[in-house]
């Protein structure tokens, strides 16, 4: 139960954690109480002014809300398309999710991170190239499938890296996210989807394994960004556009 208190902001924990730990020790909570603690943590993030912090303008939470919405649309669409209504039109939903994912990372922040963002965009570009050009030139079969899968992986990994950088998530955690949301699911699902393993090729379960963790990852990163307020150009490290203004 005490692990739930890690959801609270650091300043809040410094002030209230010892007594709340004592309270939870005296009176352990069950599911309802745990939900109440989680809601309290969300409230503490949304109201840092209660413990001497500064409340952020709502615009700082906008990128997080967009990322969270994109993740929810992505997850909802795939669940619906694969399990509920496989025959319905679905392109608009995915298009909307991808558009929200892209505008989550505004230009000025990307400029501040220079090389890392450039490499990520290059990976996305390579993915688009592989996905659009190469498969047409190599025809059907294993190479075509491998190129298409690699393309989607590169695009998805690039976008996830972008939003993770935007959310202020460190390199180790970013690699962990990539592994959990993309690499491991892809390793499990791609052989099945390509007809190289047991199971029904193209089956809904394998596709869900491949795509659902990605939507969940976006939703959680979006929630994280929304609660803490996304970093701005002013707190980007080594920002080339931040200059000291001499006192007058």
């Amino acid at each position, binding site marked *: 139960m005490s692990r739930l208190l890690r959801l609270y902001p650091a300043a*809040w924990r410094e002030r209230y954690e010892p007594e709340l730990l*004592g*309270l939870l020790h005296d009176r352990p*909570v069950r599911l309802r109480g745990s939900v109440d*603690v989680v809601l*309290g*943590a969300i*409230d*503490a993030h949304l109201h840092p002014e209660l413990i001497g912090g500064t409340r952020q303008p709502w615009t700082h939470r906008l990128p997080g809300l967009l990322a969270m919405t994109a993740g929810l649309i992505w997850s909802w669409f795939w669940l619906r398309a694969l399990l509920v209504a496989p025959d319905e039109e679905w392109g608009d939903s995915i298009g909307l999710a991808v558009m929200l994912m892209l505008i989550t990372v505004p230009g000025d922040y990307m400029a501040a991170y220079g090389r890392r963002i450039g490499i990520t965009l290059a990976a996305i570009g390579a993915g688009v190239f592989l996905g659009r050009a190469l498969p047409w030139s190599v025809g059907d079969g294993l190479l075509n499938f491998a190129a298409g899968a690699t393309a989607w992986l590169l695009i998805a990994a690039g976008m996830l890296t972008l939003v993770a950088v935007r959310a202020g998530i460190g390199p180790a955690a970013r690699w962990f996210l990539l592994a959990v949301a993309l690499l491991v699911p892809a390793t499990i699902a791609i052989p099945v989807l390509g007809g190289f393993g047991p199971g029904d090729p193209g089956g809904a379960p394998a596709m869900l394994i491949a795509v659902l963790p990605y939507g969940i990852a976006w939703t959680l990163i979006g929630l994280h960004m929304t609660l803490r307020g996304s970093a701005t150009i002013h707190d980007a490290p080594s920002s080339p556009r931040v200059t000291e203004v001499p006192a007058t």
Partner: protein
Amino acid sequence: MTNALGELGRFAEPALYILVSLSDGPKHGYAIMTDVEAVSGSPMGPGTLYGALARLERRGMIEALEPEERRRPYRLTALGATTLQAQLMQLNSFVRTGLGRLERNPS
């Protein structure tokens, strides 16, 4: 509901319970929780309790005392007592009005 508590939104009711609980002397979190549960008949979660405590403390209606081990007692301030009194008088007036109308026009 007076503005002082009304502006606390969903924490207004828990805050009122906490002020009532502290009106007979300082209490720490656990004692407030059990007292509120006895008075209101429904439990108050830890997240709600500390969300309301933080708001009341920031508005100067309660103040934290020196901690006793892991327990930190809180007490009502003069502003908190005034706010509570105004709130209870308003509720009292509301209750008397409602009961009076019921007596005059029982259905």
